[in-house]
C-alpha cells in the first residue's frame, strides 16, 4: 500500500514539476533563452493568491487573479527585459534573466517582508480506500496537471497558434517568411508559461502552505533540471522529465538512509542521463554545420 501511496505522491509532485518545466522548455524552444526568472513567477503568483484570499477569501478567485497577474507579468518582463536583447549573445540574456529573478525576489521581500506567510487554501482531508490513504490535494494536483498537460499538447498540435509555435521553434527566420508574427508568438509563449507557473504555485501551496519570497527558487531549479533531463525544447520531454523527477523524489524521501541526499540524487540523475544522452531523453540532436 505504501508503494502505491508513494507512487501517487510522486506522480502528483511530478505533475507540478512538469508544469513548471513546460514553461522553461517552451520559452527555450521558441525564444532560445533560459528564463531563470521563471521560478520567481511562481512566487509572485503565490503572493497574488495570498492577497486575493485575504481580501476576497475565495481560493478559486485567487487562482484566477494569480493566473491573470502572472500572464501580465510574464509579458511585461519579456517586453522590457528580454525583447531589447533579441539577437544578442545568449549569455547576456541569461544574465538579464538572473537580474529579473533577483528583482522579483527583492521586490516581493520589500512589499511582504521576510517572514513566511501561511496560505491555507482548503483542508480537504484524505481519500481512503481500505488501507490506502491519499490526501485529496494530491489527487486534485494529479488530475489537474494531467488535464492541463493534455490540453496544452492538443493546443500545440491542433490550433493555428500552436502550429505557429512549433514553426518558430524549428526555424525562426523561415517562420517569419511564412507570415508568422514571431514577436506575437514569443509573447504568447511567455503568457502560457507564466499561466502554468501560476497553476504550479497554487498546487505547491496546497501541499505546503508556507509562502516566502524564495518559494520558487528551488522548485524552479529542479523543474529546469527536469526540462533538461527530458531534452530542453521538447514538450513531451518536459512532462517525462518532471514526472520522473517527482517519482524519484517521492521514493527517495521514503528511504531513510538516502532521504537527506534527495536533492543530490536528483541532480546525479541529471548528470547520468546527460552522460548517456547528451541532449536529454527526447531532445533533438542538431548537427552543427560549418
Amino acid at each position: 500500500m505504501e508503494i502505491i501511496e508513494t507512487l501517487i505522491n510522486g506522480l502528483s509532485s511530478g505533475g507540478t514539476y512538469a508544469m513548471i518545466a513546460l514553461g522553461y522548455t517552451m520559452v527555450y524552444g521558441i525564444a532560445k533563452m533560459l528564463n531563470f526568472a521563471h521560478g520567481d513567477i511562481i512566487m509572485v503568483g503565490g503572493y497574488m493568491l495570498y492577497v486575493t484570499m485575504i481580501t476576497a477569501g475565495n481560493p478559486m478567485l485567487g487562482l484566477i487573479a494569480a493566473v491573470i497577474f502572472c500572464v501580465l507579468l510574464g509579458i511585461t518582463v519579456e517586453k522590457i527585459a528580454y525583447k531589447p536583447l533579441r539577437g544578442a549573445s545568449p549569455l547576456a540574456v541569461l544574465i538579464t534573466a538572473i537580474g529579473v529573478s533577483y528583482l522579483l525576489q527583492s521586490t516581493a521581500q520589500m512589499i511582504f517582508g521576510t517572514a513566511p506567510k501561511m496560505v491555507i487554501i482548503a483542508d480537504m482531508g484524505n481519500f481512503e480506500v481500505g488501507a490506502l490513504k491519499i490526501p485529496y490535494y494530491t489527487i486534485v494536483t494529479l488530475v489537474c496537471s494531467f488535464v492541463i498537460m493534455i490540453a496544452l499538447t492538443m493546443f500545440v498540435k491542433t490550433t493555428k497558434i500552436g502550429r505557429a509555435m512549433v514553426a518558430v521553434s524549428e526555424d525562426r527566420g523561415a517562420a517569419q517568411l511564412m507570415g508568422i508574427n514571431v514577436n506575437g508568438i514569443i509573447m504568447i509563449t511567455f503568457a502560457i508559461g507564466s499561466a502554468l507557473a501560476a497553476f504550479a504555485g497554487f498546487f505547491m501551496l496546497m501541499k505546503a502552505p508556507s509562502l516566502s519570497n524564495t518559494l520558487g527558487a528551488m522548485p524552479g531549479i529542479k523543474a529546469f533540471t527536469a526540462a533538461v533531463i527530458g531534452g530542453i525544447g521538447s514538450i513531451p520531454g518536459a512532462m517525462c522529465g518532471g514526472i520522473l523527477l517527482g517519482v524519484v523524489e517521492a521514493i527517495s524521501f521514503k528511504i531513510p538512509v538516502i532521504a537527506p541526499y534527495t536533492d543530490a540524487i536528483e541532480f546525479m540523475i541529471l548528470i547520468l542521463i546527460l552522460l548517456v544522452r547528451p541532449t536529454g531523453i527526447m531532445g533533438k540532436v542538431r548537427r552543427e554545420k560549418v
Partner: protein
Amino acid sequence: MAKAVKRIKWKHYANYIVIAILTVVFSIMSLSGSLTSSTIYLLEKIIIAVMLTVSLSVVVGFLGELSLGHAGFMCVGAYLGGKTACLLQPTMGNSFPALLVSLVVGGAVAALCGVIIGLPALRLKGDYLAIVTLAFGEIVRSIFMNSSSESFGGSLGLTTPRYDKNTLFIIALVLVLGCLAVIQNLIQSKHGRAITSIRDNEIAARATGINVTQYKLSVFTIAAFFAGIAGVLYSFSNYTIQSTKFNYNYSIEILVMVVLGGMGSINGSIIAATLITILDIKLQTILTGNLAVLQDLLYALVLIILVIYNNAPALKGFRERHTLKNYLYKFSKGKHDPSHRADDEAKWDRVPTKIEMNEVLSTEFQPTMSTLNPDQKGDFK
C-alpha cells in the same frame, strides 16, 4: 646589424605590478600594525573575490563555456582545506607548513573535481553544460550539509583553526599574485590563443588541429584549482564554514562580477570584484534591518540596465559613438578621429554565438542593407 629587440608590453603587466606593489605596501603596513582588523577583513574578502572572479573569467570569458557551479569548487576547497588544517593541528599546530599543506590539499581536491566535472562537459555544450555545473554545485553542497558532525560538521558547519590574521593576510596577497601570474601568462601564451579560438569557433579550432578536449579539461581544472584555494582562504578568514553559503546564488554572484567586469578581460574582472566587494560591505553597514533588501533591488536593477545597455543590438550605434575612449580622445586632441585604433584594439566586446558564426561562414550568407554601401545598391536592382 639590426638586432630584433623583443619589446616587452608593459601594459600587459601593469595589473601585475600594481598588485605586487600593493602586496608589499600592505605587508609592511600589516607587519607594522597600522591596519585595523576591519580593513584586513575587507581586504581578505576582496582577495577571495578577485581569485574567484579571475578563475571563473577564464572559463566564461576565454573558453566561452558557462559555468554556474563555481561556488561548488570553492566549497570543496573550503571544506577539505579546513579539515586538513584541523587534522594537522595536534601535530603541527598553527604553523606555516600546516597552512601550506591545507592550501595544497584544498586546491588539489577542487582541481580533481574540476576534472570530474570537465569530463561530461566535453560531451555537452552551452546550456546543457551550465545546468550540469549547477547540479554539481548543489550535489557538493548537499553532501557536505548532510555529513556527520565528526567528519565535516554537518549542518552546524566546520570550525577551522585560527591563524594569525597578519600572516594569513600576507599569504593571501601572495597567492592572489600567483593566481594572476598563472592565468595572465596562460592567456597570453599560445595556449591562451588556442582557448580563445575554441570560444570563437569550436569547429574551426578543431579543424586547425587544436586539441579541444585537452584544453577544455585543463581550463576547467585550473579554474577549479584556484576556486579551491580561494575556498581554503575563505575558511581560514571566516573561522567557520557553512555549506549554505555555497549555494547557486553565490555562483551567480561570481558570474555577475565577471560579466560586469567585461567578458574576456582579466583587469575588468579584478576591478569589478574589488568594487563590488567594497560596495557590498559598505552597503551592509549603511542599509540595516528592513533597508537591507534595497541593496538586492539596486543590484538587480543595475545588472539589468547594464546588460541591456551593453548588449542590445538596437543601441549599438549609440554605444559606439559614446565610448569613454572617444570622450578621452576628444578631451585630449580636441576632435574625434574615428580612424584612430590601437594595434591591439581588436578585442571582442561580446560573445559571438555559434549560430552567428555559422551564418558568417555559410555560403548562404545574404548581404543585408547594412552590409552594403549606399552606392553599391544599384547592382541589385
